[in-house]
């Protein structure tokens, strides 16, 4: 018999769980955070997980990093927030610094030039797929003002390379106003 939800995690448990999420999460950490926190550890019910994540998406900054801080703080206060945060970004940061050292030393070797060019081309394919998957859910619906906002953002930031702060200062309020107007 398994209880539906176990008690809140402790500080060391938070650190270990978020380290696991970080190191298993190739490409997408989000799927792993759901798997570990909802399915494996049963620290959150699925609907509470969704609510917390939705709030993280409204806040500025990387979602999953916000999520670690929020979940950690709700479970075990400030120490919990720090444990979850450092569990999530500590090991990848160390890994990236190691990669950076290697890149600065060997990145220009002719033998590696092709490898890096290949990886860069693959990464481009991956993010194109991500952006199309994200856009699709939206495009399938009937034409809405949101579509114009998405296109305007793409053109302003991607093609005209306008300063993003100004682009967002104009488009985010417009987009939120449209959403308010369209709210059910």
């Amino acid at each position, binding site marked *: 018999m398994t209880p539906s939800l176990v008690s809140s995690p402790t500080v060391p448990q938070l650190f270990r769980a978020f380290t696991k999420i970080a190191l298993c999460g190739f490409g997408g950490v989000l799927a792993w955070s759901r798997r570990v926190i909802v399915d494996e550890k049963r620290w959150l019910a699925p609907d509470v997980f969704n609510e917390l994540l939705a709030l993280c998406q*409204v806040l500025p900054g990387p979602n999953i990093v916000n999520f670690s801080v929020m979940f950690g703080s709700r479970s075990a206060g400030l120490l919990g927030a720090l444990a979850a945060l450092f569990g999530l970004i500590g090991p990848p940061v160390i890994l990236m610094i190691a990669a950076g050292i290697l890149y600065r030393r060997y990145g220009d070797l002719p033998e590696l030039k092709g490898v890096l060019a290949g990886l860069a081309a693959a990464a481009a394919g991956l993010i*194109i797929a991500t952006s199309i998957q994200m856009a699709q859910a939206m495009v399938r619906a009937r034409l809405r003002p949101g579509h114009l906002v998405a296109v305007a953002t793409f053109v302003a930031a991607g093609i005209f390379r306008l300063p993003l702060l100004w682009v967002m200062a104009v488009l985010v309020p417009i987009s939120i106003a449209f959403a308010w107007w369209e709210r059910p």
Partner: protein
Amino acid sequence: MNEDSDLYIALLLNFALFSLMAVGGANSAVPEMHRQAVEVHHWISDRKFSELFAIAQAAPGPNVVFVTLLGHYIAGIPGALITTIAMCGPTCAIAYFVARVFDRFKSAPWRVVVQAGLVPVTIGLIAASALIVARAADRDAVTFLITAATFSLTYWTKVSPLVAFGVAAALGLAGLV
């Protein structure tokens, strides 16, 4: 030393601003990171920017650690730590305080509206990131084909993109890229 500290301060301010533009995820800020780091400050070349982006994507962990790698390239280990702290610090502080009043916010109607309003902006920004990365990475027929193949694999199958990364690296090692 003075030049170093000027650079550190510039990195701190720039990346703290990027974090506020990262709506829906760290990759949303990539267009602005590229604009500032490549075009405005000339901290890194277009090609190297796309290579570092690829390394960060191929490694485990949240996408945000791309800024660690970028910071390291620009200003060594201090740079890596500064960009990471600038990108995570202010927004983590906000998240920490919001977490304490979460129960007041979770069903607020404005939360749903703000979230719905941010979705189209996020979609536009991720598409812009894709364009910027692809324009830097796809320089000839082979790289274009690798991009197309990775896209197809990721989009139409459930095969891990890591397979595509592995094959692309192997092709490069074999001197075919």
